[in-house]
Each structure stands twice: as C-alpha cells, then as structure tokens.
C-alpha cells in the first residue's frame, strides 16, 4: 500500500507539473484529492491493515495529500499572478493623452480687474456705489464745479442726448449722488466703478466706451497725506509691494490741490524701458482734495470736513497688468482672448 501511495504521489506531481490552465488544475485536484479521488480510493483499503501498519500508512497518506495540495496551491497562485499581470498589461493606457476637459469660463478681464480693485478697497473699509450711465448735465458737470461754457469742459468731449441729458463722461456723478444721499453724514468712504463714455476715435489706446473706478473719502480732518497713504497702499496691493508712487501737480475742476499719480513701471521696475519711455514711471490715476465747491454742492460744509477723491481707468490698469497691447480686444470679445483669463 505504501508503494501505491508513493506511485500516486509520483504520478500526480508529474501530471501537475504539466498543467497550464486553471480548469485542468481543478480537474486534477478532484481526480486526486476529491471525495472520490485516487487518494481516497487507496486509503479506503486501510481497514485491512494491521494496527501497527495503520498509523504508518496513515502518515504516508497525509504526506502525499500535503505534497499534492502544496503543488496545487502553488500553481493556483501562479495562475492568479499571471492573470493579474495579463490584465495590467492589457489595461495599460497612454497617460500623455489630454484629460477630459471640465467646463471653465472666464470673468471678463475688465471685471476681473474691477473685482480685484473693489476687494482691495473693501478691505480698507470702503463700500461700492453705483449710479446711472445716462446722467444729467447737472450731476455730470455742474455739481462737479464745471459750469456750462467752462473751458475745462473741453477736456472731455461728451455724447449728449438732449441739452440736459448725456452719457456720463466720468463716474464722478456717483460721488455727488452719494454725498446727497448721505445727507451731511460722515464718514463717506466709497468707490464707484462703472462704464463711462467719451467722444473719441477708437484706436489701440482709446475707446469711446471705457470703465472707470473712482474713490471718495469725506470726514473731519482728511489730509492730502492721507490720500498719498491710501494710494500707496492700493498700488502696492495691485502691482506688488515694491511699487512706489509719484505725484505731479495737475488740474481737475473738482479737486484742489489736484495731482496725477505715476507708479513705478510694472515692466522694468523703474529702471526705464520702452513701456515707460525710459522714465521708470507710468501714469495711472488722477486725484486730489475734494474742491470746497463740490463739498458744498454735495451738502457738506468745507469748513467742517475735507475729503479726497481719486479716479483711474480700468482698461489702463488691465493693459498694464496683463501686458495687453490693444484696448479694442476688451470689446471685440474674441474667445481666444477671453479664455486666457479663465484662471487665478
């Protein structure tokens, strides 16, 4: 009987060595180790053995079973490993193909700049005020110390609708409207973004429709040094901490003193380049202390309060910030242009 068992082991191991298919492996497992398998068949004859022989043969039988099982499970693991490997090989993809695009639109670059400027001033305690784009002559000019026939009206060529109604040429009328609505209360701290319109032939740097942002602060003891401090803080936030400002005396009917403000050239950092015409400075905004006449017309006593105002062109800031070469891109809305702004 021992010989038969050894022969079975021999035969089984020999046969298992040849197996290359999981189905065949299963068949062989049943053939040798199944309930009706060859091993069981042999061991069924144990009853006829002597008491001495029985444990010996039983041990041999167990060894044979263990040896066959070990080979089967080894084979099984091999098959699983092979299957996984095959699968991985089959599933290998080209990782350099582009990913499936998620939808991504862009806020218009002008509004992107407006939002950024709004947020800077909101952080400084300003609220955002808006007003009509079609204005009366009174709010657009007269209340801003620009009476009819004043030569300074030549500075802005306007689109009139009637003698008294026109497209606003600046967002300053919002300042007057806000002052009147405040009814003499202080402090006033607003910025006013919006579209404005001036008769101008469109070219790379001019557009008859453009956007402005103006700021107005009125309180007791507002000083010109506060204006400088505010503007410095603003330009450093929008153009970077190394940015400096330079004020040049200028004229606006609604401020006195008035100034034009230059900032360190965003391109060369002040060393001088083509963009700043070698000066190291770029003009970006106008400002000044609110003219007493304007305070009076807004319902404030210039002996009690003072204020400052500033204004800038959004297009100009956007052109500088993004290095755009033609203002008309903002209004032709070519998707190849707009989609460049779909990011932080």
């Amino acid at each position, binding site marked *: 009987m021992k010989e038969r068992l050894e022969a079975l082991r021999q035969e089984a191991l020999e046969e298992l060595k040849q197996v290359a298919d999981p189905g065949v492996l299963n068949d062989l497992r049943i053939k040798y180790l199944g309930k009706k398998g060859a091993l069981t068949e042999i061991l069924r004859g144990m009853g006829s053995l002597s008491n001495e022989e029985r444990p010996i043969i039983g041990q041999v039988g167990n060894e044979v079973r263990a040896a066959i099982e070990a080979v089967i499970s080894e084979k099984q693991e091999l098959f699983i490993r092979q299957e996984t490997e095959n699968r991985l090989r089959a599933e290998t993809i080209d990782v350099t*193909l582009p990913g*499936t*695009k998620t*939808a991504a*639109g862009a*806020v*218009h670059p002008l*509004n992107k700049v407006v*939002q950024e400027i709004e947020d800077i*001033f*909101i952080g400084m*305690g*300003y*609220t*955002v005020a808006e007003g009509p784009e*079609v204005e*009366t002559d009174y709010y657009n000019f007269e209340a801003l110390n620009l009476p009819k*026939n*004043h*030569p300074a009206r*030549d500075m802005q060529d306007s*689109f*009139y*609708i009637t003698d008294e*109604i026109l*497209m606003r040429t600046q967002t300053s009328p919002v300042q007057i409207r806000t002052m009147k609505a405040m009814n003499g209360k202080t*402090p006033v*701290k607003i910025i006013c973004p919006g*579209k404005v*319109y001036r*008769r101008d*032939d469109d070219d790379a740097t001019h557009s*008859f*429709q453009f956007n402005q942002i103006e700021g107005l*602060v009125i*309180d*007791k003891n507002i*000083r010109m*040094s506060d204006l*400088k*401090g505010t503007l*410095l803080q603003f330009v450093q936030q929008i153009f970077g901490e190394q940015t400096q400002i330079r*004020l*040049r*005396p*200028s*004229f606006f*009917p609604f401020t*006195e*003193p008035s100034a034009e403000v230059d900032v360190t050239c965003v391109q060369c950092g002040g060393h001088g380049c083509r963009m700043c015409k070698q000066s190291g400075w770029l003009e970006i905004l106008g400002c000044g*202390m609110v*003219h007493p006449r304007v305070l009076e017309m807004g319902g404030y006593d210039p002996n009690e309060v*003072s204020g400052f105002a500033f204004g800038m062109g959004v297009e100009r800031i956007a052109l500088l910030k993004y290095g755009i070469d033609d203002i008309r891109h903002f*209004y032709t*809305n*070519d*998707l190849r242009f*707009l*989609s460049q702004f*779909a990011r932080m």
Partner: protein
Amino acid sequence: MKVSYKWLKDYVDVSGFSAQELAEKLTRGGIEVDGVEARNQGVTGVVVGYVKSKEKHPDADKLNVCQVDVGTGEELQIVCGARNVDAGQHVPVATVGAKLPGGLAIKRAKLRGVESQGMICSAKELGINDKLLPKEQQDGILVLPQGLKLGTPIADVLGLDDEILDLDLTPNRSDALSMLGVAYEIAALTGGSVKLPEFQIPASSAKAEDHISVQISSPEQCSHYAARYIKGIKLAPSPQWMQNRLIAAGVRPISNIVDITNYVMLEYGQPLHAFDADKVAGGKIDVRLAREGETLETLDGQLRKLEPHMLVITDGTQPIALAGVMGGANSEVSEDTVNILLESAHFDGGTVRKTSRQFGLRSEASIRFEKEVDPAVVLKALERAASLIAEYADGHIAEGVVAAGSEAIKSVQISVSRERINRYLGTELSGLEIKTIFGRLNVEYEEPQPDSYVVRAPSRRGDITRDVDIIEEIARLYGYDNIPTTPIEGATTPGALTASQAIRRQIRNRLTDAGLHEVISYSFTSPERTSLFPAISGNAVPVRLSMPMSEDRSVLRTSILPNLLDIAAYNRNRKNENIAIFEAGSVFLTDEAELTRQPHERQKLAALLTGSRRHPQWNVKAEAVDFYDIKGVLEAVIELLGLSGKVNLQAAAPEQMHPGRTAAILLDTPRGSETIGYIGQLHPDTQRELDLADTYVFELNLEALYEAADSSIVYRALPRFPASTRDIAVVIDRKQETGSLKTAIVETAGELLESVEVFDIYTGERLGADKKSVALSLVYRHAERTLTDEEVTELHAKVVERLEQSFHAELRK
C-alpha cells in the same frame, strides 16, 4: 503752447538749467511738458550765400547753373532746380561737407555733366516746418532777407540753435499761454526773478483822439477797450529774428504789423488786432452785440451770419471784427494801409468761446480770451506793440490812448493760516517756509497775526480765488513728494458690497464655472438692432444720441441679446465655433420719443450657447447644444438664488425666436406671476441671416432676481426610513407638456411623494406619430416610519388613475 528756450532768456535767468531740465522742473511743478524738440534737426555746414548769376543748364531745361558767393572769396558753381532761384538773392547754401536733417551729406557732384559744388536749400531741406511759410517759400528755395553777412551759419540766421518746450496746459493755467507767464512760473520754481520788456513810446504832436474814438455799448461782454492810432506805417516783412520766434512758437509770419501783434500776444498773452484806420468809418469804434441779420466777412474769406449773442467791433454802423475771434475783411491791413488803429481789449471769455465754437473758428486769440486774459496787461501790451510798430514799420504813434471801460482787476484777498495749510496737507511747514514760497510765487501778502496770512492773488493768476488754491500753490512749490504718507485717522468703517452687487458677482462666478465666458459689449448700437427683439426689450423707444459717431452706434441698447449675436457671429468668422457667453449689464428703456428725463436703466443678464456642448477632443464627440443646455444654465442661476420653486417656463413665441422652442420666464412674486425674460432658440430665419448655427439664448431682468433672491439655507433632516421607488411609463399626446404631468402627480400623491423625475422620453412609429411615452420615477417616503408595500401600491394606483383620467394616459407594460 510752444516755448522757445532761447526766447525765454529775455525774461528770466535759466542759465543753470538745460531745456530738458527746465522741462522736468515745469512738469514736476504742474505744467506738463509734452516734449522738448531741437529746432536744428541736424543742419551743419549751411551758410548764407549770394547768388551772383544764374544761367540755364546747357542740357537740362529745369536746371539752372548759379555762381554763388559764400564769403570765402571763391565762387561756388551750384546747379539748382528750384524755379524761384534768381541772381541777387541771399540763400542758404549747403557747402561740400555739409549735413542736412536725415543725415544727408553734401558732396561734390556732376549734374547732367555740369559740376555742382553744393546745394541751395529749401526750408523743408533745412528741417523747418514750411507750412508756416508763404506759398512761394514752400515751393522752392528759401529766400533770405537782403543784407546778411555772407558765410554766416544758417542756424544763426534762422535761430535754429534753440529748443522748443511743448507745454500741455491744463485749462486753469491760461497764465502760461504767454512767454512772461511761463517766465513767472520758472522764476517761482527756480527762485529767480522776472525781467519785463523795456520799451518807450516816442513823443508826438498828433493826437489820437483827433482821429479815433471808442465806445463800449455792451460793457458786460467787454470791460475795457483801448486803442492807439499809428500813422504812416510801411507794410513789409518783419525782421528775421521776430519771424524765427514766431515760427518757433508755431505762428505763421505774415507782415510786420500782423507779426508784431502776434509777437506781443505771445509775449504778454494779450491778443491784439490792427485795423486799417482809413477803413474804419469816422475812426469810430463801437463794441456791441451783433444784431439779427447782420453778417461779416472774416479774414479767412468766409461770410458769417451773426447772432445776437455774438460780440462785434463796429464802426458805429457795420461790424468790422468778430471780437476776440477774428478780424473782418472790410478793415483788414493790406499793402495800401497807411494808418492803423491798434486794438487791445478785455473781452468776456464765455462770449468769445461760444462764438468761436459756433463757427468752428479757434484762433490763437480766441483760445486765450476764452480762458480769461490778465486784465492788467491790456495797456502794457498795447504800448509794447505800438513801440514795436514804430521801430519795425516806421509807424508814427499819435499821442494818447483812446479807451473805454477800465482795467477791471478783481483784487482777490484770501485768508489762510499756517494751521489750516498744515492740517489740509498733513505737513509741518514753518511760517518761514510758507513766506518763502509766497515770495517765490511773487504774491503780495500780509500777516495781521502771527501765522495768519491775507494773500492777494496776482491778476495774471485768475485761477486763484480760494484758500485751497493758495494751499495748492504752496503744496506744488514745496513739492508733492515732500508731503508725508499717512493712514486715515478716525473711526474704521466696515467695507462691503451691496446685496445686489454680491449677487451679481455670484451669478458671474456660477456661469463661468458652468463654462460660459463673460463678455462686455457696447451700450451704443444701431436702430435696427434695438428693434430685433421687441418682446424682450418691452417695445421700448430707443434713446438716440444727438450727435452719434456713426449710424451703427447711434442709439442706446434696449436689449443685450443683439450684441451677443454679433459677438457669436464675430467668433464664428474666426473659427471659434463652440460659443458659450453671457453679459450682465444695463439696457436703456424709455417710453418718451423726446427725452425729458433720464431713461430707465435696467440690469439684464443675457446668455448664448451655440456649437458643441463640450469641447470635442479624442474621447469627447461634438454634440450640438440644444434647448435643455440653455435651460440648464438658467436653472443653475435660479438654483443659486434659491428660487427653484418660484421660476417657471411657459411656451411663448416672441418675434425672431423659434415658435416651438421658446418660453417666457415667469417669476412668482408677491404681486403675482411676472414675466422676467425669455429663453429659447433663435428663429431659423434669424440664424440664417446672421450666419449662425442653432443658437440658444436667454435674457432676463436681473433686478427681479435681486429682489426675490433667497439666501437663507434651512437644514432638512436626513431621512431615517427607507423609500419605495416606483417607475412608471405612460403614453400620452405628444404635445402634452410633461410639466403638467408632474404637477398632477404631486397634487395626487401628496406629501408622501418625495420626488418625481422624468427619466426617459420615447417617440416612435409603434406609438403613433402624435404620441410619446414618458417614463417617470416616483419616490415615496414617510418621515416617521417605513411605508408598507400595500400603502405605496394604493397611493401609486391613485396616481396612475389620475394620469389616465386627466391626460388619457395609457400605461405602458
């Protein structure tokens, strides 16, 4: 204002500063200098020569062979093609080795076989703006005055060794429209002093009042009119130095009389006018407003119809000049003029401005008058001009100035204290610093109490009227850069967007997240465009600009949609075919044909989709957008604003829209259901016209959404008991809207129905052409317990029954 650096030296010491440095100083002080230009554009080796003889070129009709003396003792043979060259002329000669603007070097040459040792130059070849020269000087060579020393460098003769500062003046600084005004400014900036011109009027036995008289009938428009009578003038060209200065300033030399009036205007800022006194009837001057029906031929040959608001100079009967704007042809100084009446007057700026604007006539005189001239220089300028006429036109000045009115010098006294100045600027200026600046500004002041000043503004600075004007003068001379940088003191304020501004931003972000690009278009459009969608623009009358730049941009938009269509067409033409865009902005609505008040500005949101739903690529197929894509965009906005239950669509067919694929957008408000916009596909005809593929759009009223938006989020407990889902497919009439099916189901099932969704629509021949199958998924749930199968079945049966009754629905098995 163009300022000659050399000429300036007559009035103020600028020796410490180059023209460039002076420009920088002026700019930093508040008068912007646009540029500094050298008058000499690169001329060397050009000298004065004398044409001794001229002969025809033997082989060329149009060329002359000239023998020219340039003072070297040796005659030069020069071939010259100019028609106006002639023997006896003094001319600019570019000798061999000379250089001309643009780098042209003069060499010995042979022209058609004849040797030429140089070139006789035109003004243009010398880099001079020849538009300011007489026609004959433009066409040919520049003919110089007689008597010049031969061999003198031409740069000296023409004053080319000079630089011009081009001032870009703000309207308040009309004082700098004169050389003296600029000199005062430079003196203030550099700490120098101003030297006034010196001159004298020779004594005369003739009396002006015997020849002329002056009367002002409109004193409001003319506060002062002074005149001189000058006899026996000889009209001739003005001296070369004066012509050089006029050309440097951009003024055309004409004759000695006209040039002198212009020269003195440039010097003092006071415009002057010379009349031929013999053409002024009776020598009488009456300044008055024009009368209805009067006309005047001005010096430019135009016959002007005068209006009663215009100020004219008359000889007592007829107008002879348009005051402050332009002289009349009937009293013009000409070759035959012997006696002149020289005018210096102070006219009202607004009156001059109105007249000059109306005629489109902006002269050097009107530009100065409309910005107000210093009333104190009327007489000084008159005397200066008279003395120059005596000197350079052999005039004999009759004794006395004949005048009416007077120097109406407003003596403005302004009180300002050191404390006020420092508090306004944030500075700590000492009394000494402030008084030093007053001195530099050349203003008179008193100090009644320590650190309190009463300042008298100089008459040439009409812009200084209040304490802040004085403070500005102090600030700019102290230097804006020296003012400190401080934070605002006082209470802090909370900054914020208003509710509607915040909503607008959120909508913008939601739409860009959904893949739409924001656009900004023009508010001006064409009348045709505004009438494109009458329903969407509410049949508004478009507001028309009074003077549009073009018909395409002549009215204000009443809807944003037409602009989006244009943007879509623009992009399609550039092969950007998958377009998803939106704009939030104002439209302008009125019901008035003639505006008497501002139009209503309404904030609108418009969106447009066309082309492929998603950007096609290797794993994504191009799929054309449809109505449900644009509806999804709309729903995203509605959901964002918490208005899901309050907005409904109702099929509609406004003009230019596809009648089967368009709906009105209805919003439930406390006032009832309101139409706030439209959504749908463009009409195929409109698409064809604009060359667009299938295009889906919506436009709606943003203000209605701002008002209704609900930002409150109230948490709902998550379900604790299981739901039962029942799917159902019913065949109904194809025209039947699924919306009403859902409404009926909700009504019937009551609160145990958690949701109902359409998950499939099927049409096919098997159903019949007028039928469709709608598959719905219904979810039933009780909040407090598990529903039994029987309960759900019973409820669901009621729903089915309701569908069968109300919609003749057949249950599909």
